[in-house]
């Protein structure tokens, strides 16, 4: 099998699909040339600074869809600061592994979350540590099997 059962489950039944009309933050990463685009919307409880809701849309292969799906599950209900700590490694681990040449999809999921949070911070004039949004903050494309 190309993908394990967990990946196939998230691919076949992606969670949190769609968009949020009045989102507090939107992030879009990837490009069509490479065959992957992820777009993520977040709704934030601004008093508690918690991600109330999250939705995604993805153009891409099975693992791109599965990684977006599980990433939304992992950050929903979490403090915004914690969502920023979501690493591609954690995404792959939560899925129980991905084929080596598909690991870039998990990096994309991490970047989509960060892009949505950054958009939220920018729109609300919230100061943030720019270091946290640099590519490879979590060690980049770590080999996880």
């Amino acid at each position, binding site marked *: 099998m190309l993908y394990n059962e967990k990946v*196939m489950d998230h*691919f*076949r039944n*992606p969670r949190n*699909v*769609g*968009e949020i009309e009045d989102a507090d933050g939107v992030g*879009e990463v990837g490009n*069509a*040339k*490479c*065959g*992957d*685009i*992820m*777009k993520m919307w977040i709704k934030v409880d601004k008093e508690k600074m918690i991600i109330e809701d999250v939705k*995604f*849309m*993805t*153009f*891409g*292969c*099975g*693992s*791109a*869809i599965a990684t977006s799906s599980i990433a939304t599950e992992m950050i929903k209900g979490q403090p915004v600061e914690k969502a920023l700590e979501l690493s591609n490694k954690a995404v792959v681990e939560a899925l129980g592994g991905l084929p080596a*040449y*598909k690991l*870039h999809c998990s990096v994309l999921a991490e970047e989509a979350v960060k892009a949505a949070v950054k958009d939220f911070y920018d729109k609300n004039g919230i100061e943030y540590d720019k270091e946290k949004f640099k590519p490879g903050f979590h060690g980049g494309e770590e080999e996880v099997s």
Partner: protein
Amino acid sequence: MKTIYLDNAGTTQMSPEVKKAMLPFFDEEYGNASSLHFLGQKARERLEEARADIAKCLNCLPEEIFFTSGGSESDNWAITSACREGERKGKKHIITSAFEHHAVLNTVKRFEREGFRVTYLPVYENGIVKVEDLQNALTDDTALVTIMFANNEIGTIQPIEEIGKICKEKGVLFHCDAVQAVGHVEVDLQKLPVDMLSISAHKFHGPKGVGVLFKRKGKRIESFILGGTQEMNKRAGTENVAGCVGMAVALKEACKNLKENNEHEKRLRDKLFDELSKIPHSRINGDRINRLPNNFNMSFEGIEGEGLILLLSDSGICSSSGSACTSGSLDPSHVLLSIGLIHDVAHGSLRLTLSRFTTEEEIDFTIKEVKRIVEYLRSFSPLWKDYEKGVKKHVI
């Protein structure tokens, strides 16, 4: 769940007659065709019968048929032999097309690294080489022209007869990879002026692991696999008698019913084109008319092929795509790029290849499923959504 097999350009199901013909050679008639005893001689007879049957189907001589392990070996052998001969004569130029199978491209590239000049003829939007491009590319130091009969992804048929005539006039060796064509369209080697031609049995309901290199009488060929004196001292290795017999039976069956099979496959294939072209923002890849009767290839904008293949597979439908994710690299198929598709469109391609076993019911179900899955994948594709909302004028 019922299996609907629409990946016949990848491989085919073996015909029941072929299986029946092969079985005795595994445990009863297991002799080595090179042995002198009765069991060996019996195997020899069956092997030569198979060679004669194949020669008859292709309208050539039995001594022009060399058994190999399949299409890739035949391609490697033909090109390597032609280039070594060219090298000895100081001819170090190869002409091929941009969208050959990797068995041809990677062999040609090996000689390119070793100092050969290579011309990759363009195949244009319709997926067909132009004869005048070949004429312009030919030089005094051209050692070999190698052009496929029909493309494995988009099925487009090349002007082999004209190419062969030009090569013959110029005295240049011409090899043709006919792996997708033999058993599917007429290949008459008296009519076609080719010097070498590659064939693979498992593409026409024969077994895997056996093929043929046709080499016209009077043309030189160098051994590729060294060892014993098998195959007229040109290809060493104990003969795969079961495979060769199976291949002969498969080819006889295919040639006997060629016209009926063609009509059957073409009618169902055209139904796929007609129905699936109704999907908005879709395109047919390669010339619609001048292609193998069993080949369907289309792109659907705004989706990626792998998801489509996996969901079709969940419905029991076996298909393939030229998307990057299905190739194991980050680039989509070189064939789709060679006919001018941009990456984004090539990612959303679907290839369905039919056989004589394909039924109308299977095609109707497939049409329904492709429509459903494309719509589903587009429902959460950001590219498609932006287009639908009018944020962008084009999907891609």
